[in-house]
């Protein structure tokens, strides 16, 4: 192909500028400067989001934290080793003995698939990273992605500057870091990314009003539905937004197209997850999602009919249809509810609407510490200056409402309300706070810098104003808002506020959110003490017990025992069967003979308790014991909470009741403890967590014997004796 000849000369133009001169020419253009600055900022934001979450890996080792991540890790191993179809149809016989658990149908597989895909990709690129390391670093990787999506979301809501501020704030907000540190291989690590992506793509779909953008949003919704149970938050928030837009008179054809496509494609995709299945159309939790779809179709049909018929005929038709639809709808809902076809709301979501529900009816939900309501201090601890900037952001959203900012307002208000009810949901409110604060901070910075950049225009404006109004007082009052010093001060204060925010975030991450709770680390430098009792005990179980041994412990430790100890457990963190957990609770709370009967029924070989009296570890089973009593007593009325309380006081000292001091939990925790001197100046058997001496110091066990106690007495394992010979 011959080159096109320019009209100026016979030869095509070839630049003889050197690399340096070309670079200088590009760099002096504002557009390229802006692009360069934006790219550098986003790269640094990504690196910051990744690196701030690495404290526990750097301080100790790359290990998976907490309880739930161990189950996710075990599932990912299963997925990678056995393959997709084995994982999809997996029945796990190693937990919930003798019931087993249908893992394929009761798990949200998004996280496992993500980690498996990352593993396969890294193997393909011959990077050969171990699966455990992939799992540990999934969360920081996705945190960086969330920061970039926050940039896109801010850009969609307002402008590029807001996006950059949103990305920077999202990278270090402590509320999000708490559940996405390296090692926290839990659903929220990828789910928050999916949540913000779905919201961003939804706002984009509403702004563009095309089918393609809504389908993209539906695929993001699929990722969210596959990853976390809080997908119902999205499914209820988007219909709520449509209703609010309708009521405030901002309904448009774009919303209709976006919602209809999102409903159709999103429902179909979400139903592919085995755990969700047909729940998506029959459950009460998604009633508004499906109801708003029907309502939108009805409204558009009415609008269509009105353009075709005359006013009078249309009025008659509307009246008839409204009456008929109302009657049919009411009758239909009544029939469905009465015949039980509509599944009721699950207990966890009822708690969000009525906070006192769980306390009265479902002790298991109420006992989880993450489900406790939030105090004022959690807000400033998890969000720092964002709590101040968020109301200002709400004000900016109300001042100039657009489709996107109204969505952000609805999201923020529901998220803030729910974060007040459950501490765990602070995680969902954190992106809302970040986006609101980004709008506020970006508006402050923009107005201040705009004033700084136009000093000449302001000066020429004041003199014509003074002569037009004819008042001399106008020239006496200086307008301090336009003065350079004021705006520089505002910029400086914003800088200081964001500096304090980032230093707070780093301190909080380092001190509060980076503990690998499987290992207890305290002290610094030469005084560092590492308590690795959990892994010591689980590996003892793995190497020193029969492969088909069954271990009974409280449900908190089930996942860890199955993953690290490789033994079958009776109950684990999935807590799907309340009666089974109540049986274990009853066994722990009864005296040894009764407990032995229950343990023989359940085929238990080993009983495991966590005891903190020697080391000072305060989340031990004696502190959780009242919950065992409550949950057991909820199913078996023979266990009464008042039997374990001395004058309303929960104590294991000499004032404790006989039922308490004879219970299996007391015996297993304090066996042989009465002979130990734990503190100077105190007697033997001084419990360092409860801070008093225990009641019964010589504990005799008839039906169990001590098999293993870890170095600091944190994990204690007992072997259940066989039945005695009759002769």
């Amino acid at each position, binding site marked *: 192909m011959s080159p096109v000849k320019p009209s100026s000369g016979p030869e095509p133009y070839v630049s003889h500028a050197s690399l340096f001169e070309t670079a200088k020419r590009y760099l002096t253009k504002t557009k390229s400067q802006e692009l360069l600055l934006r790219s550098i900022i986003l790269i640094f934001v990504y690196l910051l989001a990744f690196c701030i979450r690495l404290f526990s890996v750097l301080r100790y080792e790359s290990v998976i934290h907490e309880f739930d991540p161990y189950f996710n890790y075990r599932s990912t191993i299963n997925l990678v080793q056995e393959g997709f179809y084995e994982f999809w149809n997996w029945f796990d016989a190693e937990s919930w003995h003798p019931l087993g658990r249908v893992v394929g149908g009761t798990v949200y597989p998004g996280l496992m698939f993500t980690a498996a895909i990352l593993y396969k990709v890294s193997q393909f690129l011959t990077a050969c990273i171990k699966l455990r390391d992939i799992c540990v670093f999934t969360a920081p990787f996705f945190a960086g992605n969330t920061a970039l999506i926050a940039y896109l979301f801010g850009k969609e809501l307002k402008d590029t500057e807001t996006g950059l501020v949103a990305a920077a704030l999202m990278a270090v907000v402590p509320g999000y870091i708490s559940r996405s540190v390296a090692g926290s291989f839990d659903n929220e690590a990828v789910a928050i990314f999916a949540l913000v992506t779905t919201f961003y793509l939804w706002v984009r779909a509403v702004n563009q009003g095309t089918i393609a953008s809504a389908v993209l949003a539906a695929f993001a919704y699929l990722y969210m539905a596959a990853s976390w149970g809080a997908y119902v938050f999205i499914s209820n928030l988007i219909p709520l937004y449509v209703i609010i837009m309708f*009521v*405030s*008179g901002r309904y448009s054809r774009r919303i209709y197209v976006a919602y209809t496509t999102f409903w159709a494609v999103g429902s179909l995709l979400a139903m592919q997850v085995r755990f969700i299945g047909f729940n998506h159309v029959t459950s009460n939790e998604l009633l508004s999602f499906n109801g708003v779809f029907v309502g939108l179709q009805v409204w558009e049909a009415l609008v269509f009919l009105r353009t075709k018929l005359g006013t009078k005929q249309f009025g008659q038709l509307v009246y008839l249809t409204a009456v008929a639809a109302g009657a049919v709808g009411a009758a239909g809902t009544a029939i469905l509810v009465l015949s039980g076809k509509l599944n009721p709301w699950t207990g966890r979501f009822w708690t969000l609407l009525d*906070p*006192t529900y769980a*306390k009265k009816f479902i002790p298991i939900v109420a006992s989880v*510490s993450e489900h*406790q*309501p*939030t*105090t*004022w*201090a*959690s*807000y*400033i*601890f998890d969000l720092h*200056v964002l*709590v*101040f*900037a*968020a*109301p*200002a952001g*709400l*004000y*900016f959203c*109300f*001042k100039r*409402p657009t489709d996107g900012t109204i969505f952000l*307002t609805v999201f923020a*208000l529901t998220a*803030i*309300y729910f*974060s*007040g*009810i459950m*501490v765990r949901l602070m995680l969902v409110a954190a992106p809302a706070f970040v986006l609101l604060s980004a709008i*506020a901070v970006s*508006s*402050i910075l923009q*107005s201040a810098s705009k*004033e700084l950049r136009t000093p000449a225009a302001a000066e020429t404006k004041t003199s014509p104003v003074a002569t037009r109004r004819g008042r001399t007082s*106008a020239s006496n*009052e*200086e*307008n*301090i*808002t336009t003065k350079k010093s*004021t705006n520089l*001060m*505002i910029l400086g*204060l914003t800088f200081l*506020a964001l500096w304090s925010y980032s230093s*707070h975030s780093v*301190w909080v991450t380092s*001190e509060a959110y980076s503990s690998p709770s499987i290992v207890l680390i305290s002290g610094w430098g030469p005084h560092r003490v590492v308590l690795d009792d959990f892994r010591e005990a689980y590996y003892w179980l793995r190497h020193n017990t029969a492969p088909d041994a069954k271990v009974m412990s409280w449900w908190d430790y089930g996942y860890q025992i199955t993953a690290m100890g490789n033994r079958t457990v009776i109950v684990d963190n999935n807590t799907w069967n309340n009666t089974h957990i109540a049986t274990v609770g009853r066994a722990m709370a009864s005296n040894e003979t009764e407990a032995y009967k229950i343990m023989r029924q359940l085929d238990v070989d080993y009983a495991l308790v966590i005891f903190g009296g020697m080391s000072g570890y305060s989340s031990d089973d004696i502190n959780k014991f009242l919950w065992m009593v409550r949950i057991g007593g909820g199913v078996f009325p023979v266990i009464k909470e008042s039997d374990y309380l001395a004058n309303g006081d929960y104590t294991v000292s000499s004032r404790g009741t006989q039922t308490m001091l004879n219970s299996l939990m007391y015996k297993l925790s304090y066996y042989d403890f009465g002979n130990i001197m734990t503190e100077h100046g105190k007697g033997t058997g001084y419990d360092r967590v409860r801070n008093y001496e225990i009641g019964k110091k010589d504990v005799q066990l008839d039906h169990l014997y001590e098999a293993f106690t870890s170095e600091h007495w944190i994990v204690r394992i007992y072997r259940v004796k066989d039945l005695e010979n009759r002769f």
Partner: protein
Amino acid sequence: MPRLSSLEELRPSPMLICTLVLVSYFFVTAGIAYDIINEPPAVGGQTDPVTGAVKPMTFMPYRLNGQFILEGLSGGFFYTLGGVGIILLDLSRDKNQSVLFRNVYLGLGLAITILSYMVCMVFIRIKMPGYMR
């Protein structure tokens, strides 16, 4: 259709909604759900070991997951006040206001914002003595 136009008049103004939102923000961040469920006392008491007298203790110490009612309300109040301060800062940019109002909004806004931040820092240091150490 005549009914629709009356719906327009029924709709509240955005700024009224914003005010209601700020009031609800105050209540939620003050930990009202915690107060309803756990029913803590309004202030705690600290028994003086020597005299036996009970000194009122406003902040539940060393625990982020516990609060007294008054402590929660004061925290929530200062969060909302800080937000109002930033709103005032923005109100001072309105070119259609008189210069006096703009100056007052600016000064008041700066003072309130800085005050709220300082007070919240003091509060969190009282509640958690190990903060930023």
